[in-house]
């Protein structure tokens, strides 16, 4: 029977021994070296039964099918728009996925999305070579006018949003702001100027303290002040 050498939710660094024993299973963020399970990323280690998984503290976004993200138009081509996803991988938005209107090839595409526009889109497919297909047709998907775009840590997005949106709702309600956080680490905020500043402060606090307990209360307190 093996030994577990870290506590649940402990932060571990590459090369650190997590556990020993052949019945331990190395999940994401770990690897096996003979009897030992070793951390391979700077991460929060969780144990689920005998599966060890590290949730990374940092890391650039890697596109995944099904993700809702915010993209930035970096180029306009005949076939559609080239979109920056805050990742090593750009996405192509083809004409047919841009709008419920029929867009004729050769027409003025800037009517829909111009250079430097930000839009919320959904990732519909990612190939092994990381070619990314996206769509802007769908509920809630649109060009993001007005407001501020900031970068957030993509690995903290789940914490920022919260279970079923619980965390982000607290901020939206308290400050009367529209906020959309893309899985890819772009976030859009719109509200009164002072409320936007407060919202961003709250977001930065969540990023910093994501790995701690009692965060929801602290954020609520901060927003009440």
């Amino acid at each position, binding site marked *: 029977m093996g030994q577990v050498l870290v506590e649940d939710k402990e*932060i571990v*660094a*590459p090369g650190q021994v997590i556990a020993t024993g052949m019945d331990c299973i190395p999940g994401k963020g770990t690897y096996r070296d003979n009897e030992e399970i070793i951390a391979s990323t*700077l991460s929060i280690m969780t144990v689920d039964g005998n599966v060890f998984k590290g949730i990374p*503290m*940092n*890391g*650039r976004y890697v596109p995944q099918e099904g993700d809702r993200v915010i993209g930035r138009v970096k180029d306009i081509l005949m076939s559609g728009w080239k979109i920056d996803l805050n990742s090593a991988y750009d996405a192509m938005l083809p004409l047919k996925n841009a709008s419920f209107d029929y867009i004729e090839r050769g027409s003025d595409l800037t009517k829909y999305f111009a250079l430097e526009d930000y839009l919320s889109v959904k990732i519909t497919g990612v190939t092994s070579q990381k070619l990314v297909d996206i769509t802007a047709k769908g509920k809630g998907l649109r060009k993001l006018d007005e407001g501020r775009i900031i970068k957030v840590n993509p690995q903290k997005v789940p914490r920022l949003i919260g279970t079923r949106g619980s965390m982000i709702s607290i901020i939206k309600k308290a400050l009367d702001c529209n906020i959309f956080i893309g899985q890819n680490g772009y976030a859009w905020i719109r509200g009164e100027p002072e409320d936007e500043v407060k919202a961003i402060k709250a977001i930065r606090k969540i990023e910093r*303290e994501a790995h701690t307990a009692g965060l929801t209360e602290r954020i609520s307190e901060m927003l009440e002040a």
Partner: protein
Amino acid sequence: MTLRPDGRKPHETREITAEAGVIKQADGSAKFKIGNTEAVAAVYGPQELHPRHLQNPKKGILRCSYNMLPFSGDGSRVRPGFSRRSEEISHVTTKALEPVVDLTEYPNSVVDVFIELTQTDAGSRCAGICAASMALADAGITMKDMVPAISVGKLNDTLVIDLDGEEEHLDENETPDIPVAMIPRSEEITLLQLDGIVTQQELLDGMSLVKESLHEIADLQRKALKKQYEGVVQE
């Protein structure tokens, strides 16, 4: 008469301070200071790689660059820009780190590591590798292990760890200087250079001696990476 000008014991390194998350706009970063030598490293990536012909469809590539800031030399100003010495150190630094990183999740991309020396007093390439290794971990890159690096040298027939600037120039013939980087778990060597004259046996003894220091440095690196997340709940 003490062997070392600053009174250190043969296997004693200078004082080390290590800190991660020091460059806000980078994807990962770290500062590694040993004695009066300080290296700052920042990682950008994985990101798009240009030109296209450098792209590897099987995995991302690692690209390190080492540079001394103009005021960091122990003598006159270091002219900014290209230098053959920096090119070589950049290259061996990349080779020192490549064996531990796993970039298979990022085909066709590049992970850039920029290392800048803010002040130097010997051991700058080792400090750079230490900082770079931490910065890569800080950026969330998948790595087998940390990569610590330090020099072992010879003063008056005694093997010593971590030569400082004064020691480097003590001998009228160059003080033998061996920078080493290692993967702690396997004790495999990823950086090895030598300037100076040593015997075969001294070399082997030096390699044994330096391992303990390298393990200690790796522990310091991991501690520093974690430290940035401790005590965050203050305000």
